[in-house]
């Protein structure tokens, strides 16, 4: 299936919802993590975290681009020119950056979830998506290695590193599974072969994947998402602040060239 081939209307709108969710996830986590540029705990680590944040925004740009080919809008317009309520990122990434332990915990939960999501798309019948996913997966290997390394380091750093990590995991637990919030009309995506498994099945795979490392490090496994129906539609004050920041200059003149 290519962009030109006829997509059934139901499939098309479900696909747009999927792409928007993925784009918004990468956009928001990329923005939060980019805040560490210049203020990370170690100079060398500062450069590393910034690269990862830039990668996420690059992925967002690619997803907005793919979405834009379906909706005939350019990526910047899709990303920036809309109200905050229209964002469809998951609650896991909605939280502010907070401290290093929070950032690492959230990165690890997100990267592992995203890996499962991407795996469900790597043989997508929608060829442009399969192609993009293959490229993104290659970049994500680095992200996962980095996040896992830091999770391990903090988990064994007694008392302070571990205490902060446990507190972060506690705060994030109710929202960790929101990456797998059921998408509108997602059954049509599975039927059409766009996605190989539904979000509920992906969540099971994800949690099973976390188990060995979390058991080894004696970390609590996150459970099901609290309030799953609103997993992608409620946004915090922290996000509203971020929205104000990333629209501040653009909204001086949204139609001007910047």
């Amino acid at each position, binding site marked *: 299936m290519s962009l030109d081939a006829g997509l059934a209307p139901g499939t098309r709108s479900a696909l747009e919802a999927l792409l928007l969710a993925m784009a918004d996830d990468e956009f928001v986590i990329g923005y939060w993590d980019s805040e560490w540029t210049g203020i990370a705990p170690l100079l060398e680590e500062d*450069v590393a975290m910034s690269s990862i944040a830039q990668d996420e925004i690059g992925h*967002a740009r690619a997803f907005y681009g793919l979405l834009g080919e379906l909706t005939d809008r350019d990526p910047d317009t899709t990303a920036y020119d809309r109200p905050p309520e229209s964002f469809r990122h998951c609650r896991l990434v909605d939280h502010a950056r907070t401290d290093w332990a929070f950032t690492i915990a959230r990165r690890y939960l997100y990267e592992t979830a995203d890996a499962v999501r991407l795996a469900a798309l790597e043989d997508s019948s929608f060829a442009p998506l399969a192609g993009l996913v293959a490229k993104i997966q290659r970049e994500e290997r680095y992200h996962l290695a980095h996040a896992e390394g830091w999770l391990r*380091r903090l988990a*064994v750093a007694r008392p302070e590193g571990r205490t*902060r990590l446990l507190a972060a995991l506690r705060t994030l637990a109710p929202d960790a599974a929101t990456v797998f919030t059921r998408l509108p009309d997602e059954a049509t995506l599975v039927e059409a072969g766009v996605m190989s498994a539904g979000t509920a099945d992906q969540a099971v795979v994800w949690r099973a994947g976390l188990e060995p490392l979390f058991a080894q490090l004696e970390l609590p496994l996150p459970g099901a998402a609290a309030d799953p129906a609103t997993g992608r539609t409620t946004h915090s004050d922290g996000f509203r602040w971020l929205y104000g920041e990333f629209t501040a200059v653009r909204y001086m*003149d949204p139609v001007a060239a910047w």
Partner: protein
Amino acid sequence: MTDPLALDPVLPPRERTHLPHNDARLSHDERYRAFEAHVQAGGKIEAGDWMPDEYRQSVLRFVEMHANSELMGVLPEREWLLRAPTLRRKLALTAKVQDEVGHAQLLYRVAEDLGKPREAMFDDLIAGRTKFHNVFHYPTYSWGDVGIIAWLVDAAAIVAQQALRDSSYGPYARTMRKICWEESVHIMHGRDVVVTLVNGTPAQFELAQEALVRWWGPLMQMHGPRTPREKDRDLYWRVKAKTSEELRQEFLGIYVDRIRELGLVIPDPDLRFDDADGKWHYTEPDWQELRTVVTNHGPRSQARLDFRRVNLEETAWVRRAILGAPAAAAA
């Protein structure tokens, strides 16, 4: 007098090599003269070599101020990191600020290998005992600042940095070559932002023009007051190769035309190139302002140093956690 603990070389000193200044059998005076001759002839000094105290102090002070400037220079620009108006500008600005952090890393490494630990350098910076360049003590007000800083402040810096690529201190010279290569992208990004603004709406043009008016004074002060060649010890030791005035002339020679061709007005009515003496003439920069600012009495000096201090305090637990913690559980 050198504090022996602060400047204890971290790499084992060579005792007997083909370079006379490294020959421990010679007297201090003989080694000093040999060192001078080596440097004056264009020879390079490496981290493990014997150095006169004066040379070691000069290089360390020079490199440390440069490293501090990269670290502090991050702060005005990162205020705009979240506010970039397009995805591409967001990526470009984040990458640029990341590069400044990377440059701080490279430069602090050079200084560390001269014997001063990173933590000591951060302490001295925050306590005001060491300095950072004037331009990073000023506020930013708009996206216009983002363009002007990335273009012209970086341009003025690169003029100085290119002249350091042949520094007598080997590790610094090599680092400067890497930094110059990386900086060239920043200037292009900055110029692109400014050209886009001047080609845009009247309000956008005004962002660039207004920022230029505020930044011109600090830019002209940036390379420092004129000092006679004979009195400049950093020139004598070939740590640097050009005088302040040579750098300023070079900057003006390249950038005045590039600024004017965009329709921007430089706020110095006396700025002109004189064909008779082949030099740019300009209103004398306010050297009192420069002195005030670099002694940490600039508009944002204390706020930014406080920001750094708080950031180091807030992230100290991470460094404690990974240094001195037992080895992470094996995979």
